[in-house]
């Protein structure tokens, strides 16, 4: 709902009106995106169509589906999707919908199909390549051919073992979009390819997904809001790197291994803080010490709510004491701090007393600059204004 009392009402909710400041290419002159971009349900619908139906969406990790028949399931708004490992070891993704009467095939977030994908409704059965193999009592049905009722396949690609799907048949390939992101992650987590799924932590946040993303993309707030996190890195070395579709946020290791966050032994991951954002809603984190990587997926759940799935990857699914300490810090200190910030900022964005702010981008101080937020806001504006002729 667009609040008509807000001064920036224009014909199209996406259009920048006379009272909106521009989101310029040059971050030094740029405003943040207008508040209605965070709160308006019409903008949210545009995002579903132009952002999330056109880009790569994280489904899970190959280590969660090691055997033929193993699957992970996700939901891209109204679109239920499964990714299944086939008998040929290839991972394929399909709409998680039986072609008979539309029942969902997999009902869990992850699991295993024994021999075939059997629909829980009428037991139509598909092989892991999506071909309909068994459909009871259809032999005498005039004109019925099983080959007409195979599962609808969705594009599926892996990156560093992470499995992504894309609903758009003609958008760029995942491996072109990630550019040198893999090199960047491997440079920080050299044993990344040995990591395996350990656990999922889920957070429900009362804030728009872009508020949550913005917060991930700058450490300007860290000294004020995350005293322990600042202790875990050399803030002066915090560097933001921007590519077409991702940004990285990396700082060197702290001088002491005993920090307010947790104590760690110097290990493979020899740095302080490392985080990567991959457009539009996938992020990765690593903590100092032994090999580890987390994926944090920022899932819109209406304009005013977000679900975060934080999956932890370690050398062994059972965390060591050091990783337990790192996870406990993340789960009970860092995440609650960030969620509190996001929920308050979102309430502020809903008020009539705010429309846009300015981005703080002092080139001399990369550690307290909002380059990453600007990079993200440009991607949002560009995506929402793409193919405007097709809007109605």
């Amino acid at each position: 709902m667009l609040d008509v009392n807000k001064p920036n009402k224009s014909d199209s909710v996406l259009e920048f009106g006379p009272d909106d400041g521009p989101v310029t290419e040059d971050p030094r002159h740029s405003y943040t995106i207008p508040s209605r971009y965070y709160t308006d349900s019409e903008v949210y619908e545009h995002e579903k169509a132009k952002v999330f139906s056109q880009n790569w969406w994280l489904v899970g990790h190959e280590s969660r589906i090691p055997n033929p028949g193993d699957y992970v399931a996700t939901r891209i708004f109204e679109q239920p999707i499964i990714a299944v490992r086939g008998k040929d070891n290839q991972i394929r993704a399909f709409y998680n919908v039986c072609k008979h009467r539309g029942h969902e095939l997999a009902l869990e977030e992850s699991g295993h199909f024994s021999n075939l994908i059997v629909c829980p409704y009428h037991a139509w059965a598909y092989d892991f390549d999506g071909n309909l193999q068994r459909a009871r009592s259809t032999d005498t049905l005039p004109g019925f051919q099983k080959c007409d009722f195979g599962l609808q396949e969705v594009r599926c690609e892996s990156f560093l073992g992470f499995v992504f799907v894309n609903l758009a048949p003609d958008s760029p390939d995942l491996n072109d979009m990630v550019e040198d992101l893999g090199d960047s992650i491997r440079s920080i987590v050299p044993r990344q390819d040995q990591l395996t799924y350990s656990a999922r932590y889920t957070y429900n946040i009362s804030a728009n997904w872009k508020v949550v993303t913005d917060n991930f993309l700058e450490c300007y707030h860290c000294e004020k809001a995350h005293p322990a996190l600042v202790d875990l890195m050399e803030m002066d070395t915090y560097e933001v790197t921007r590519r077409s579709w991702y940004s990285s946020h990396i700082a060197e290791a702290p001088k002491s291994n005993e920090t307010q966050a947790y104590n760690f032994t110097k290990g493979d991951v020899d740095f302080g803080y490392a985080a990567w954002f991959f457009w539009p809603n996938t992020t990765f984190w690593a903590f100092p010490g032994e090999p580890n990587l987390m994926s944090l997926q920022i899932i819109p759940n209406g304009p005013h709510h977000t679900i975060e799935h934080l999956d932890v990857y370690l050398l062994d699914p059972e965390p060591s004491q050091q990783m337990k300490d790192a996870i406990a810090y993340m789960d009970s200190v860092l995440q609650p701090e960030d969620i509190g910030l996001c929920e308050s900022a979102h309430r502020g964005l809903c008020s009539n007393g705010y429309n846009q702010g300015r981005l703080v981008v002092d080139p001399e101080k990369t550690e307290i600059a909002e380059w990453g937020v600007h990079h993200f806001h440009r991607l949002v504006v560009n995506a929402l204004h793409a193919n405007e002729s097709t809007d109605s």
Partner: protein
Amino acid sequence: MPTVNYIQANGQAVQAEVKSGDTVKDGAVKSMVTGIMAECGGACMCATCHVYVHEDWRADVGEPSTEEIEVLGFADHVEDRSRLSCQISMSSELDGLVVYIPE
């Protein structure tokens, strides 16, 4: 009532009484025999009720139909003695039947 002896993959046996006319799958599901999932409910669709029939009973149990052979094609570790337990109907002649559950 006729009985069926289910030898689970771990070697442990489960003996169950199975009414004449019910299938060997029905008895396994009621007695919660490990390894018999019967995902399709017993319609010869999914091959998750696969068993090996003991050599002494193979002649009495009989051979699978063409349709059953087709579905067995989706199961792992299929042998000559493989059957889908949803396609074996119990009768007094099969009293004491022994079947093995594959790994």
